[in-house]
């Protein structure tokens, strides 16, 4: 069943003095995300993939086309209700936390907006359950400052934040690009685990292997346009577009040294 659908979504930025020049970041992009499905949105820097993520999260509004959630145009859904079901995690954990406050503030922000009626004990047990579901030890991370946590712990805490709400779709924008290789696989496996539990994930990445690891279907973006889309195994096994083939060839292999062609 289709949960999220993008129909001809376009984003044009006005740049320069008084917005005289136009910059098309995303052009006529259409794809959909099914219930509990993981879609990898892959593209190089400047391909518009993050802009798409921001539009799905309603942090930016499309200049053309429609985004449908559960069959309804998202501009017609109350923002508050939408955010109960769609949440995001960003690339840079170090800038996702306000550096002057304790890290668990990101969790408590949710309480004011969405669970004002819970008392302290109920809320804390909810927080602890969410932290445990991302394999964090509440005693170890609660009350700490961001600089006292590792990058992996921060990203897990941000995922826990999203899980406090009963979300159906998680937008993961370069979630693990800034983590080192060993913590990377843990967070990746956490996402796979969430997928098992029926959560749909829009996985935005520039890294082909990460996209391949997790996703059911792949959308390849280039300069704001979709160049190829299909089931991940097919896209990776038999890429039909020249750009996809070029990208696949340019991935460094583990057992292969550089040699000039």
């Amino acid at each position: 069943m289709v949960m999220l659908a993008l129909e001809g979504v376009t984003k044009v930025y006005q740049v320069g003095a008084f917005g005289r020049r136009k910059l098309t970041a995303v052009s006529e992009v259409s794809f959909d995300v099914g219930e509990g499905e993981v879609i990898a949105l892959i593209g190089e820097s400047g391909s518009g993939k993050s802009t798409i993520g921001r539009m799905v999260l309603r942090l930016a509004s499309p200049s053309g086309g429609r985004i449908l959630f559960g069959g309804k145009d998202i501009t017609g859904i109350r923002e508050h209700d939408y955010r109960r079901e769609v949440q995001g995690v960003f690339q840079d954990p170090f800038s996702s936390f306000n550096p002057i406050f304790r890290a668990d503030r990101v969790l408590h922000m949710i309480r004011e907006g969405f669970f004002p009626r819970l008392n302290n004990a109920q809320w804390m047990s909810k927080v602890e359950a969410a932290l445990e579901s991302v394999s964090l030890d509440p005693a170890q991370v609660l009350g700490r400052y961001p600089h006292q946590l590792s990058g992996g712990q921060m990203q897990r805490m941000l995922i826990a934040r999203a899980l406090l709400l009963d979300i159906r779709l998680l937008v993961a924008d370069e979630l693990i690009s800034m983590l080192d290789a060993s913590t990377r696989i843990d967070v990746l496996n956490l996402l796979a685990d969430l997928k098992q539990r029926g959560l749909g994930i829009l996985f935005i990445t520039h890294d082909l292997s990460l996209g391949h690891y997790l996703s059911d279907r792949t959308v390849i973006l280039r300069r704001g346009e979709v160049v190829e889309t299909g089931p991940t195994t097919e896209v990776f096994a038999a890429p039909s577009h020249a750009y996809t083939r070029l990208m696949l060839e340019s991935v460094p292999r583990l057992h292969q040294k550089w040699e000039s062609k």
Partner: protein
Amino acid sequence: MREQFYFAFRNRKVVGGLSVILGLLVLGLVAPLFADYGPNEYVGPPAAPPSGEFLFGTTTFGQDVFLQFTTGLRSTFLVGVLGGGIAALIGMTIGFVAGYRGGLLDEVLNMLTNVVLVLPALAVLIILHAYLGIKSIPAQALFIGAFSWPWVARAVRAQTLSLRSREFVDLARLSGMGTMRIIRREIAPNMSSYLLLTFILLFGGAVLFAATLDFIGLGPTESVSLGLMMNNAVHWSALHLGLWWWFVPPGLGITAIVGALYVTNVGLDEVFNPRLREM
């Protein structure tokens, strides 16, 4: 926070500057309470030099200069707090809103800021005071505040612009926080030290503006202020008659307050920015 208090109390500039300011404030608040006559009453021998009875001597008319000085300190602090506060409020509101909302609103507010920025504030204030005949210190502070905010708006806007694009602001939006709450709870705390320093500079600026206006005789004439004392001293040729005790205290008082504010400012800068700390 505790760490900052620790460094603030170990910083000689902060401690020195604050003690001068607090000392003068207490003097201004307490000393006039012990006088049983008003600052403009003719109570002593005319043009008497400082003595045990009249600490700072008397004016040509026999008014108590010490009482005038301490009463004048009150108006100086009042005009500083009010004028600086009003300018801070306007400048920060415009800066935050313009920087955070962006777009057309930013262009309009920016244009307004630039217009007020290029107005020569002192000239405008002189004209306003001359035409409107400002009678009270709060009114004077209001006008001073209304013309000294533009650089604050510009600086706050620039900082807000850079903080707005940080991901924690996006996260706050995803958590359902509104614009004003995000400005208040996410953006402003990140620049709280800067905002405090801004207020101190505005405070000093307002004191100087008020003293200038009073000195050229455009201030509130019904009250007593340090600038007005100097205006009277010049008016009645205190310099030529050798009545130095009439104009030196108010001049030193203004210099001490503004100087101490700036020294405190530099000290606080060191407290908030570890790289500037003297070891």
